């Protein structure tokens, strides 16, 4: 379209918005998935994503071509914690990583073997019962398939912290699933 190019000077704004559409919009599902798992309901999740997208648009100039998904997920996470006036993640981090919550591992119980039979509903409830720092690390790893490095970037933690938190999260989820044998059995039928 040479005519268009002649009449319209390439405005930095339009280039910027085309870049935003190409890089950030494809990550909308990822943004919503994380927000939905943090907020645990549709209405709040939509608010969080809407606000996060506005922030992303506003600060798009500070994004310098690394992974747009990681960048957007970090914004979603921060937006959620600010909007919900939750305790800052730092506080959660400290209380969680102390020995108050040691890794409990009783070895595989017979119930653990029914894990495969657990349906989506039971799994969803168990995951929602986890404290947010554990829930987010599991969602990022298992549902978004982020690497430890990406999770560390999104949650502003060290890779070592990501690793131990993921271990804790899986331990807790396993306990949630196996210590409620009634539910498991009911769904097993």
């Amino acid at each position: 379209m040479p005519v268009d190019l002649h009449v319209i000077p390439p405005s930095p704004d339009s280039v910027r918005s085309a870049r935003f559409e190409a890089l950030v919009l494809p990550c909308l599902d990822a943004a919503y998935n994380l927000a939905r798992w943090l907020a645990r309901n549709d209405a709040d999740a939509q608010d969080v994503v809407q606000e996060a997208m506005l922030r992303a648009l506003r600060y798009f100039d500070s994004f310098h071509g690394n992974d747009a998904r990681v960048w957007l997920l970090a914004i979603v996470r921060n937006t959620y914690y600010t909007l919900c006036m939750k305790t800052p993640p730092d506080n959660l981090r400290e209380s969680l990583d102390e020995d108050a919550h040691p890794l409990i591992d009783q070895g595989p119980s017979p119930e653990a073997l029914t894990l495969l039979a657990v349906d989506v509903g039971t799994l969803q409830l168990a995951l929602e019962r986890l404290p947010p720092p554990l829930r987010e690390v599991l969602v990022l790893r298992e549902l978004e398939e982020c690497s430890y490095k990406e999770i560390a970037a999104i949650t502003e933690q060290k890779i070592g912290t990501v690793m131990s938190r993921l271990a804790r999260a899986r331990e807790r989820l396993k306990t949630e699933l196996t210590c409620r044998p009634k539910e498991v059995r009911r769904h097993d039928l």
Partner: protein
Amino acid sequence: MTCDDTRLLMHAYLDDELDAAQSAVMARHLQECTSCTANYGVYSRLRKALAQPGLYHRAPDALRERWSPAPSAAQATLPASSQPRRAPLAYAMAAGFAGALLLTSPAWITALQQRGADSNPVVAEAISSHIRSLQAQHLMDVVSTDQHTVKPWFEGKLDFSPRVKDLVSEGFPLIGGRLDAIDGRSVAALIYKRHLHVINLYQWPADSAATAQAEVQRHGYTVIRWTAEGMRYVAISDVSAGDLKQFVLAFQNDAGTPAVNPSR
């Protein structure tokens, strides 16, 4: 390595986040320790359960529409307070330019890429075959996670004996095999999974000696080709290029199949 040490490392091992030395130590420990192996099995099953698509929340349509790529819609959602009002003409021009950019640049990029990839018919055929295999009921002729079932199945169906190995311990479980045609001949196709993604691995006897590994990206698929021990291999999937490379490495690595196979 003691069982206490494995408590954290097991998860990193499960996530393919250990370096080669550490994963070798971990694999050895799993071979020796039944209780850790059982634990590993439970956690791989938990991972598999979490990969169910029902747990993923996709953005609702209302939200998607609000952020739809139409330039006018994107402009409308700009926060009024943070942007000074501009004349409607400027908006129209900006939108027009963005539209022109959207229309022209991807076309150029695709055209260039297609020309590059089309020069190799094998890549194009592998992509078509991969896509066809994902359409209803075309994926597998023999369904089995056991390499000792899949390999004999090919006997008498091909004029060569394909190399079959299960890579479940590397995070790429074998799920079956299929006969396919590429480059005008019958080839063996092995089907592997990576979480929810399918990996097709084609192999047939090579005419030429070993060649360097070549990697091509097209339409969101990654294709890796290599030749080894008289066989040509083509691996294709929509997993990330890094994951597919890891898969190829795992397949090429003869020693890398620990006997432990806990998730079965």
